[in-house]
């Protein structure tokens, strides 16, 4: 894939660091590599094997039958996976520029998310290290639970400003900070 322009934050001035309550801590992260891999029904096992064999420090999130979203902490994962997963095994799609990660943590993080997202955020229903897909006012979200009170939300780049407005307003009631 051709190199795209330098990554720029779509949130820009909205997500500038500011101090406040530590009950909710918000931050923004741009991915180094974010890749979706979709296996065909008869190649799920082989594609999973190829993903595991591709080295890197990453988070592999199952997002559907035979589908994974892979967030890697180095650039170039899409090219690496394309070499291993051809069209006979599945489809590799680069989403590095298509999503922004909004991270939320703090003792009230779950409370804030539950106020607008119709998911069961109890840790028994949504364990640490697992992924759930949902939406907030029709903005699709892939939510990864980092810890009991810590989440990474993968949000469409073109809609993340709208989502950020909501999450700030939802956090304002109890106070928040941005790092």
């Amino acid at each position: 894939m051709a190199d795209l322009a330098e990554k720029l934050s779509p949130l820009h001035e909205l997500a500038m660091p500011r101090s406040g309550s530590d009950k909710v801590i918000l931050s923004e992260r741009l991915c180094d590599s974010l890749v979706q891999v979709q296996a065909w029904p008869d190649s799920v096992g082989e594609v999973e094997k190829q993903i595991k064999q591709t080295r890197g420090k990453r988070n592999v999130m199952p997002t559907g039958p035979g589908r994974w979203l892979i967030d890697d902490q180095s650039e170039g994962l899409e090219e690496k996976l394309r070499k291993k997963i051809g069209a006979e095994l599945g489809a590799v799609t680069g989403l590095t520029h298509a999503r922004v990660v909004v991270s939320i943590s703090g003792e009230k993080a779950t409370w804030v998310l539950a106020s607008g997202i119709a998911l069961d955020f109890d840790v028994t229903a949504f364990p640490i290290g697992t992924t759930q897909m949902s939406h907030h006012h029709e903005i699709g979200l892939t939510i990864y639970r980092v810890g009991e009170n810590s989440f990474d939300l993968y949000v469409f780049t073109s809609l993340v400003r709208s989502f950020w407005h909501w999450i700030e307003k939802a956090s304002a009631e109890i106070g928040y900070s941005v790092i």
Partner: protein
Amino acid sequence: MRLTCPYCGPRDHQEFTYRGDASAVRPVLDNTSIDDHNAYIYDRTNPDGLHRELWNHTSGCRTHIIVERNTITHDVVSCEPVGPFAEQLK
């Protein structure tokens, strides 16, 4: 109303998109009867009671499911996966 996605579990119906009557059968490609194609596109029985319908989990795993639902009470009787991964989801 909640629908049970075979991949994601029980979810609010707003995460899903209604994709139409699951009992409508598309005429075969070499069927040139306008009446048959017209019936497939437009004719619906609109039952009061149990109805089989296609839903897509748009805000989730994007799997299609067939929902059997009571159109009067909104009671959901069953949610079955369809499509290429249906067997793996059963």
